[in-house]
């Protein structure tokens, strides 16, 4: 057991990028070597692949695509420059911070700079908008899904009555109902949030329900034997039993919610522009292909960060006792 803890401690040192060599409490070199293996340090595999892809990219641009059509695959350094460097000033970045602050703190003010036209600043503001939409959507979905799962876990009848409709919500192609949502709820923030809720509700509800019902038979007997009330059983047995499945589902749902926010932003452009709106705008102008690539890159980063964050959050809550890694 101490062995395991040491490995984990060493691993987190390594992840934090500590300048010293990652070391376990007793500084055993074997453990350091094991860390290295687990996280791929000292093996250049991923780097080699990355360099090859970039090489292939340049080769494709110059050797495969006709000169007149090269705008469809702009070069990596052009994307980097246009998307992330050109025209970026400290003041612009400060604007982004100010905008975030004004959204989070009720009395903070934000005056957008109307003349500004910097891709990165637009991208970051769009990213922020998408984060807001997907976060609100995810929280609402989690709330309704968990309450729904708790109710369903209490009665087989309720579960049987509602579960088919959960599956239907899941089965409806979200793109097919997006226009409908717009017509009914308008083309702004709330419609985008609703798309997120619809897309991320099912995995949370289904997994949490499964988790609530997953407590071992013997433990259920033990609670019955000692006349535990439904509520006691829920709090002390079912909810802890559901946590691993819940966190796994949050990780899946968070990724889906980001997709929902981008799809929502793509269709509903009223109000602040999210990543979806930016993608749509850049895609409509061939000269903006580098910006389009940069925005795709930002969207991917958001998806990856959200995935890692919920994995980390889950492990923080249940890692020390659950066999399951989220």
């Amino acid at each position: 057991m101490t062995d395991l803890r040491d490995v984990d401690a060493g691993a987190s040192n390594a992840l934090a990028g500590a300048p010293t060599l990652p070391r376990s409490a007793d500084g055993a070199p074997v453990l350091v070597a094991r860390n290295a293996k687990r996280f791929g340090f000292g093996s250049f595999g991923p780097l080699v692949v990355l360099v090859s892809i970039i090489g292939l990219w340049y080769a494709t641009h110059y050797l495969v695509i006709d000169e007149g059509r090269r705008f469809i695959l702009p070069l990596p350094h052009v994307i980097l420059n246009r998307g992330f460097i050109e025209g970026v000033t400290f003041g612009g970045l400060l604007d982004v911070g100010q905008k975030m602050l004004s959204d989070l703190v009720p009395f903070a003010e934000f005056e957008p700079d109307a003349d500004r036209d910097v891709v990165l600043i637009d991208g970051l503001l769009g990213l922020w908008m998408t984060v807001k939409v997907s976060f609100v959507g995810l929280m609402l979905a989690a709330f309704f899904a968990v309450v729904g799962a708790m109710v369903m876990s209490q009665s087989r009848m309720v579960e049987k009555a509602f579960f088919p409709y959960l599956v239907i919500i899941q089965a409806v192609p979200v793109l097919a109902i997006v226009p409908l949502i717009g017509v009914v709820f308008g083309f702004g923030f709330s419609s985008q949030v609703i798309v997120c809720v619809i897309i991320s509700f099912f995995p949370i509800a289904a997994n949490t329900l499964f988790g609530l019902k997953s407590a071992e038979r013997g433990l259920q007997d033990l609670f019955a034997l000692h006349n535990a009330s439904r509520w006691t059983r829920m709090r002390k047995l079912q909810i802890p039993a559901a946590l691993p499945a819940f966190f796994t589902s949050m990780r899946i749902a968070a990724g889906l919610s980001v997709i929902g926010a981008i799809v929502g932003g793509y269709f509903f452009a009223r109000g602040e522009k999210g990543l979806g709106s930016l993608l749509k705008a850049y895609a409509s102008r061939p000269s903006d292909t580098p910006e389009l690539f940069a925005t795709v890159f930002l969207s991917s980063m958001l998806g990856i960060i959200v995935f890692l964050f919920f994995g980390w959050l889950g492990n923080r809550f249940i890692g020390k006792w659950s066999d399951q890694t989220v």
Partner: protein
Amino acid sequence: MEPVQELIDLTEPKATGSPALVFDGVGKTFPDGTEALRGVTFDVNPGEFVTVVGPSGCGKSTLLRLASGLDEVTAGRCDVDRSNIGYVFQDATLLPSRTVIGNVELIAELHGDSKAERRARSAEAITKVGLAGFENHYPKQLSGGMRMRASLARSLVMSPPIFLFDEPFGALDEITRELMNEETLRLFKEEGFAGLFITHSITEAVFMSTKVLVMSGRPGTIVDSFDVPFDHPRSPEMRFDPAFAELSGRVSHSLRGAHA
């Protein structure tokens, strides 16, 4: 084999006061029509450790579910004070999200005992089962034997006058199982509870018990009874004693008869 004849032999009244547990002509037929038990009659008196051996699926575990009130009898009568029963399940059945001490205090917690009181009693029970120092470990950090010890401690906290054991050590390796047998026996003597133990291991049955009952296949009923005369404390070497082997042989013979 004449089950009816055997039953009459078994209902002989015991000299000691009122029994901790009485099965009187108990039958259990499940809603799907399966008859699991028929005419089961025996007592467990204070100071007795009774073991039921029988083929798989003969309804041994059902016996404990009926005794504890988890299931209802469909014939006969089962008398036991249900307010305080120790029940040790086939698996350790610990809450994975709680540490050893959190698990051990669970039953006291369900009965509404104050935090300070149940902490103190849990710490004591943990010491009794030899888990001191592991209070703050999670179940996944423990071996199978240690988990079973935690499970025992959880029931010990309430000092129940009767313990029901549902093949608790079946999943352990042999040496761990023998150690747990000895530990349980020590607790049985120290704590003075009555025990009803289910197993399909003859060695375990003879080593642990004051009395071994043999159960037939479905519908399960008691077909034979063996008093185990060996004194306590029982040493691990007792398993290699000729008298032990002789008694085990007789139980085995009876069990083969019950299988047929």
